[in-house]
């Protein structure tokens, strides 16, 4: 008897026990659909995080003070360091800006909202890319003259003034127990990223002002706590960052004291990738357990089926079925049950992932390989859990089986 005949016999048997077959498949359906959902959302999530970093800039680096090493005033970076970096790494640096950020409050709709006031230079928009929808970005003369001007985001403009075109208006930010008044020269589009989509947290809101104005307002003088940079796309980010760090160390004669620390988006991205990898591995192993449970369900039903059909097996053997014919018949039945469960589960899984991804706005990352793996796995479950009952059937003694009532 060939596979085709076995399949025909198996389908007939499955069909004559529709309800039971469907219930048996349910275990596999749930298992496969959860595997598909986890993989699809996991892949989509990784893609979304990747895009987040992309918008952030993969070649983006930050060099800042390492406050845990108690840097002294002689260790603090200054504008001369920036000039030196710019000169030495002119081929590697695409944009460089000092950044000084402090938190403050702004009155909106009669309630206070937290904002960050960031002092940056005119190059900063080539690092943290914001789309200017009204007015302009900071320009060199703003920096040179330390003008008290500001860029705010679109939602802040809407909340404060009820319109986007707010150039020339003044905003008052309360920070460090004093009010500072800033002239709005530009409005940028509010960023919508993964974090805000998930609704986990309100995204931090930034007000950008010239670094020179920040230094004067907050009285920090020629001290730079952090430098944001965007490197050229083809450079080895980590080695450039290391060289920059050691150059600053040499300039302050504190080599080896770890007074500065560097971050790169690249290494952050790797960390995030590792974490999401671990999460999806954990969740998929839970899903795999449900597949195993489903497989045990298949085995259980196949054992019942073998017992129920003992007489049928006896008849088949009496008219010439060999051991392997019987083995194949029941094995094919198990594989068809779990294979059909796999197909239905795949369809469900895709449906569920689309529904969830529409809800949390992550693009679903469906791949053929995921579907293939899930489906092969379910067929494998069928073989693994079908072999024992099928072998039991094949080993039955025909005389005993024929006598079975």
């Amino acid at each position, binding site marked *: 008897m060939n596979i085709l005949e076995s399949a025909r016999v198996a389908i007939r048997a499955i069909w*004559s026990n529709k309800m039971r077959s469907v219930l048996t498949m349910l275990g596999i359906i749930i298992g496969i659909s959860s595997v598909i959902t986890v993989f699809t959302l996991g892949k989509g999530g990784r893609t979304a995080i990747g895009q987040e970093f992309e918008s952030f800039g993969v070649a983006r680096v930050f060099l800042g003070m390492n406050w845990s090493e108690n840097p002294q005033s002689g260790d603090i970076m200054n504008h001369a360091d920036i000039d030196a970096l710019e000169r030495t790494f002119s081929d590697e640096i695409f944009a460089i800006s000092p950044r000084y950020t402090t938190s403050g409050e702004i009155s909106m709709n009669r309630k206070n909202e937290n904002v960050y006031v960031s002092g940056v230079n005119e190059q900063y928009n080539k690092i943290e890319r914001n789309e200017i929808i009204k007015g302009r970005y900071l320009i060199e003369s703003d920096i040179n003259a330390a003008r008290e001007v500001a860029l705010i985001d679109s939602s802040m403009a809407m909340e404060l003034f009820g319109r986007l075109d707010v150039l020339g208006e003044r905003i008052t930010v309360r920070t460090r127990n004093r009010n500072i008044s800033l002239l709005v020269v530009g409005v940028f589009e509010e960023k919508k990223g993964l974090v805000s989509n998930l609704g986990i947290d309100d995204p931090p809101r930034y007000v950008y002002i010239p670094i020179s104005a920040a230094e004067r307002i907050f009285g920090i003088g020629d001290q730079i706590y952090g430098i944001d940079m965007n490197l050229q796309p083809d450079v080895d980010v980590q080695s450039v960052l290391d060289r920059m760090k050691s150059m600053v160390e040499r300039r302050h004669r504190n080599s080896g004291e770890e007074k500065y620390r560097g971050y790169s988006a690249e290494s952050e991205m790797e960390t995030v990738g590792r974490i999401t990898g671990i999460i999806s591995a954990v969740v998929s192993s839970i899903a795999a357990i449900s597949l195993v449970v489903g497989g045990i369900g298949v085995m259980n039903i196949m054992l019942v089926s073998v017992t129920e059909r003992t007489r049928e097996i006896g008849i088949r053997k009496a*008219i010439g079925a060999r051991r392997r014919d019987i083995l194949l018949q029941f094995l094919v039945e198990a594989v068809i049950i779990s294979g059909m469960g796999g197909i239905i589960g795949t369809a469900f899984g895709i449906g569920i992932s689309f529904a969830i991804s529409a809800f949390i706005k992550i693009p679903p990352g469906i791949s053929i390989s995921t579907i293939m793996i899930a489906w092969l796995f379910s067929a494998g479950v069928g073989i693994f859990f079908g072999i024992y009952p099928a072998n039991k059937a094949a080993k039955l003694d025909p005389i005993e089986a024929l006598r079975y009532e």
Partner: protein
Amino acid sequence: MIRIQDLSKVYSMGDIEVNALIDINLRIGKGEFVSVMGPSGSGKSTLMNILGCLDKPTRGKFFLDGEDVSGLDDDALAGIRNKKIGFVFQSFNLLPRMTALHNVELPMIYSGIRREKRIKMAMKALEKVNLSDRIYHQPNELSGGQRQRVAIARTLVNNPSIILADEPTGNLDTKSGEEIMEIFKLLNEEGVTILLVTHEKNIAEYSKRIVTFRDGRIIKDCLKEPLADEEGGLAE
């Protein structure tokens, strides 16, 4: 074509050994129609199981068409059952939820005959037992006599060396029983070898030779009428 030499079958049930068959010698020639009679426990069923290659003898030899089958393995025996033996059981033993046609097709599935040919041959066999109008009926839609006719058609399709019928009329009313026996008689006249187990005298009357068993031994082996076939021998 069937030759049994000093054949014994011993069953061990725990510590007790049961001698189901003791030193049986029997020859059945081609075209014979033999009835095996005897009270229950006399060894009839054991003989049937061994002749049908469902069971193996403890001692002795069993030649089928000149081939010693007593030492063959399970799969080889399955092949012999498929090609040379046709079973007819008291309880019909058709597969439920399958049409008469499919039931008759079944042996040919295991001998690897193509589907179109299978259907054609199954139709022919069903025609032979006068069931052409019932081919798409399932066993539960058929009367006992009709079911047994399906079972007979199932034995015919692989053109077996011998049909082994174990109380084929045991579950049937007299009229259906007679119909079944008429079919056997007809088949035998066409040259099919038949071995029939029964304990009903009037059923055994249909055969040409009656072998009687008691306590695992043949106690009587007599011809009802002279055999035309020289090859068919008597028990030694």
